[in-house]
C-alpha cells in the first residue's frame, strides 16, 4: 500500500479556500452565538417572568437536538416555512447560532451566578444601582470566569463548522470530500484534513488556557 500526498499539493488552493471558509464561519458564528447567548442569559436572569419558561425551553431543546438536525432543518425546511431560500453559508451561520447561542447562554448564566452575593452586597452598600452593579461589578468578574468555557465553546464551534459540509458549505470538510472523491485518495486527503483541524483547534484550547491563567485573579473574589 502506498500513499501519495501529492494530491494535497495539487489541490492546495482548493483546500486552503476551505480552511478560509471554515475559519470565517467559526469566527462569525462564534461572535453571533456569544452576542445572542448574552441576551438570552440576561433575559433568563432578569427578564420578565412570563418570558422565562420560553427561554428555558429554547435552551434545553437545543441541548436535546443534534446540531446536524438543526443545520439540515434550517437549510432545507426553514425556506419552505418562510418562502425565502438562503445560501448554504448563511443557513449554516444561522443554524449554528441558533444551536450554540443556547450553550453560550448557559455559560453566561453560570458565570453571573458564580459571582458571590457578597460582591453585590458590597456594591449595594456603596449605593450602586442594580444596572451599575451588573455592568461594573458582576459582569467584569463573570466574564473572566467564563473564559475557559468560552474557549471550549469556540473549539466546539470550529468542530461544528465541519458539519456544515452536509449542507454544502464549501468549508474544509466539504472541500476534502470533493478532493477525496475526485482523486480516489481518501486516506491521504482525510488524514491531511485531520492534521489541519488539529492545528486549528489545539492552539485555541491551549491559548485560552494560558490566557485564563494570567487573568484568573481578576475574577476571584
Amino acid at each position, binding site marked *: 500500500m502506498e500513499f501519495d500526498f501529492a494530491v494535497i499539493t495539487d489541490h492546495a488552493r482548493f483546500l486552503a479556500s476551505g480552511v478560509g471558509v471554515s475559519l470565517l464561519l467559526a469566527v462569525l458564528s462564534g461572535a453571533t452565538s456569544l452576542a445572542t447567548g448574552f441576551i438570552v442569559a440576561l433575559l433568563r436572569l432578569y427578564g420578565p417572568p412570563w418570558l422565562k419558561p420560553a427561554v428555558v425551553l429554547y435552551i434545553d431543546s437545543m441541548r436535546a*437536538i443534534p446540531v*446536524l438536525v438543526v443545520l*439540515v*432543518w434550517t437549510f432545507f*425546511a426553514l425556506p*419552505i416555512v418562510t418562502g425565502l431560500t438562503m445560501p448554504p453559508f448563511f443557513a449554516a451561520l444561522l443554524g449554528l447560532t441558533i444551536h450554540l447561542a443556547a450553550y453560550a447562554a448557559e455559560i453566561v448564566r453560570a458565570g453571573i451566578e458564580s459571582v458571590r452575593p457578597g460582591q453585590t452586597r458590597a456594591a449595594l452598600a456603596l449605593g450602586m444601582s442594580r444596572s451599575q452593579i451588573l455592568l461594573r461589578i458582576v459582569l467584569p468578574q463573570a466574564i473572566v470566569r467564563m473564559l475557559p468555557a468560552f474557549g471550549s465553546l469556540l473549539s466546539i464551534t470550529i*468542530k*461544528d463548522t465541519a458539519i456544515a459540509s452536509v449542507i454544502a458549505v464549501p468549508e474544509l470538510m466539504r472541500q476534502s470530500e470533493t478532493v477525496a472523491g475526485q482523486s480516489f485518495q481518501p*486516506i491521504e486527503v482525510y488524514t491531511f484534513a485531520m492534521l489541519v*483541524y488539529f492545528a486549528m483547534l489545539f492552539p485555541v484550547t491551549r491559548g485560552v488556557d494560558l490566557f485564563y491563567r494570567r487573568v484568573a485573579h481578576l475574577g476571584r473574589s
Partner: protein
Amino acid sequence: MTLDWGVVWQNRDALIKGTATTILLTFATMAIALPCGAVVAVLRLYAWKPIRGLATAYVEFFRNLPLILVVYWAFYVLPILTGFGVSPLLTGLAALALNVTAYNAETFRAGINSIRRGQVEAAMALGMSRVQALRRVVIPQALRRILPVLASTWVSLFKDTSLVSVIAVTELAYVSMQVRAQTFRVLEMLTAMAIIYWLLGYPQAKLVDWIQRRYAVTE
C-alpha cells in the same frame, strides 16, 4: 404550501428502526468507551513514560478533531487496516468509540487529579496502602465529580450518533433524510426527525441537570 403529515406515519416502521439504531449506538459506544477511557486514563497517570505520552497524544488528538471527519476517515481507513469490509454500523461505532474514549479518559484523569494530595496522605497516615487509598478514598470522591461529566458526555454522544448518517448508517437522521429524498416531504420529515430527537434528548438533558445538582461538589 400543502403539508402531508401522513408521510411520517406511513414510514413509522423505518423511523422506529432508525430510532432503535440511534439508541443502540449510544449504549454500545458508551459500553466500549467507559472501560477503554478508564484504561487510557490510568495509562496517562501511572504508566511508563513513553506510554503515558502516547496516551496523552491520543486523548489530545481526538478531542481536537471534528467527529464527522473521524467518521469519514474511519470509513476509508478501517477496511485497509483490517483487510476486510466493515459494515457502516461497525465503522460508525468505531469512530464514536474512538472519540468518546478520548473524552472519558480526560474526564477520569481530571476526576482523579481533582482529589487533593492531602486525602491520599491522610489515608496512608492511617496505614492504608496506596491501592487501598486509591480504592477507598480517592475513587469514591472522584466519582462524584466524574458522574456529572459522564452524564453530559452521554447526551452529547446521543446527539453525535446523528453524524454517522454521512456513511449511511441507518440511524434516525439517515432514515429521516432517506424518506425525505424519496417522498419530497422535506418539511414534514425534517420536522419529525427534530421532534423525535427532542422527545428522546429533552428528558436526558433534564436528567443531566438533576445529576449535576445532586452531585454538586461544594468544598
